């Protein structure tokens, strides 16, 4: 019976052929952006399951969390007539709004370039910039700038060696989601590597959504812009009238 199940598993998952796979979970699979949202911390935990004795070579884990992607325009300021003006621009087809990597070791040691290409793990790989070289003289600089600016905003993060194995097979990682979060589906990927080769990978999702008043205002501003605008004005008029009325009362 056990042997039959094992055989089935072996044929079903090629990764299992190596005898190792990941089991993992998230502390939460949805994040609500409410009015007092100050960012969120998500615990990602897991273990390596072995069906055979561990093969030689060091085992490593790479965890990536990727926010929804959008097209991006990167502009560069240049000095013109004494003032700094946006001049050249490069359009990038798709860049994630958030991207965090946590690993057990240095990426260059635990992941080969071929595997990186296949699974698109590192930050430059997560950005899809096709045909940008025709758009500006030194297009790669624009790409570097995108990564630099987003890293400074806390949107792109590389935390090498921030994940530790306990008892050889258990691992955990805390991913901090910043307060300026874009809503959408966040994809968590966990890779297991040995000798730079990806042995197994799994994917989980976190649903980030505006909730309550945030959701209501955002939807109304998009679906009913005229009513939304009128309501904004009504609030302004009432507040203005209320203030002068209250002030008159206080004076008496």
């Amino acid at each position, binding site marked *: 019976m056990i042997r039959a199940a094992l055989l089935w598993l072996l044929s079903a998952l090629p990764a299992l052929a190596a005898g190792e796979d990941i089991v993992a979970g998230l502390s939460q699979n949805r994040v609500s952006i409410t009015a007092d949202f100050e960012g969120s911390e998500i615990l990602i935990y897991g273990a390596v399951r072995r069906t055979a004795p561990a093969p030689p070579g060091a085992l490593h884990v790479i965890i990536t969390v990727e926010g929804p992607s959008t097209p991006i325009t990167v*502009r560069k300021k240049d000095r013109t007539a004494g003032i700094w003006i946006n001049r050249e621009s490069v359009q990038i087809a798709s860049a994630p709004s958030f991207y965090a990597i946590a690993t057990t070791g240095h990426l260059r040691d635990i992941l080969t370039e071929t595997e990186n290409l296949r699974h698109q793990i590192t930050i430059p790989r997560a950005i899809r910039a096709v045909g940008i070289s025709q758009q500006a003289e030194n297009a790669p600089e624009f790409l570097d*700038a995108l990564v630099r600016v987003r890293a400074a905003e806390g949107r792109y993060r590389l935390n090498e060696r921030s994940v530790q194995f306990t008892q050889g097979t258990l691992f955990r990682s805390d991913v901090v989601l910043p307060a300026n979060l874009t809503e959408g589906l966040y994809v968590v990927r966990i890779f297991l590597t040995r000798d730079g080769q990806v042995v197994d990978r799994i994917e989980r999702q976190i649903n980030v959504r505006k909730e309550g008043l945030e959701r209501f205002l955002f939807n109304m501003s998009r679906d009913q812009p005229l009513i939304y605008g009128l309501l904004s004005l009504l609030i*302004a008029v009432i507040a203005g009238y209320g203030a002068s009325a209250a002030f008159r009362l206080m004076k008496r």
Partner: protein
Amino acid sequence: MQIFLPIADISVNLFLLLGIGGVVGFLSGLFGVGGGFLITPLLFFIGIPPTIAVATGANQVVASSVSGVLAQVKRKAVDFPMGFVLLAGGLVGSAGGVWFFARLTAAGQVDLFVQLSYVLFLGLIGLTMFWESVVALRRANRPGGPIRRSHTHNWVHGLPFKMKFRASGLYISVLPPLAVGALVGFLAAIMGVGGGFIMVPAMIYLLGMPTKVVIGTSLFQIIFVTAFTTLMHAVTANTVDMMLAVLLILGGVIGAQIGAQVSGRLKAEQLRILLSLLVLGVAAKIALDLLLRPSELYTITPGLLP
């Protein structure tokens, strides 16, 4: 305490926003201006995207103008026919401004244009006001100097389409008020301001209106122009952040009332010198941002160019 702004998509300190609203409201009560020219740059400084700062700033000006105009109506210091003529020009200017703003956003030059407008207009107005007040102070200290005539005839009075404005005691062509209204409406849409700081001098020096009706009439028409601007931005670009507006307004209306109290205890010339220094300070800060090499040359905007 942080608060997440649903349209701007960023989290900002609640008390910082109330404070900005309060300080600007205080100054607006003190000096009798809308305060838009301060609130919009302050929102830039704390990282609110320019398009949202401009649209939401306009919404805030509506509240402070309503608060201000009610007191003026009581004093019968609003020239309604003049207000409507200015308004007619203002709506045209505002519609043009919103359209122009959208084009600039698409071209990636909106920040530059908004900043240049601020430097130019605040610089000019600040200098003029400062000079006027210094001259007035000197004259007050040295009696017997020449007295300025309040009503002089100039080229403005030769234009056609004349109309009577009883409250202002004027019989002039409707063309100059229309043009002034249109200019102010245009600026309101682009700079997120009411334009009182341009409107008031234009009414006094260009149209020759008596000072007692100037502030009320200017506030009256600013309400409608900024309301129209807010609505246009909300509909065309979804850039009005109601949460942000409510917090600014809340701080603003309270600050304005305190400011109005304090203003009664200061001399008019001293007030105007203070205001002009403030205006010049804002202009200088924005000018420096344009002239000095920015620490990051690259900027990132989600979305593609059309």
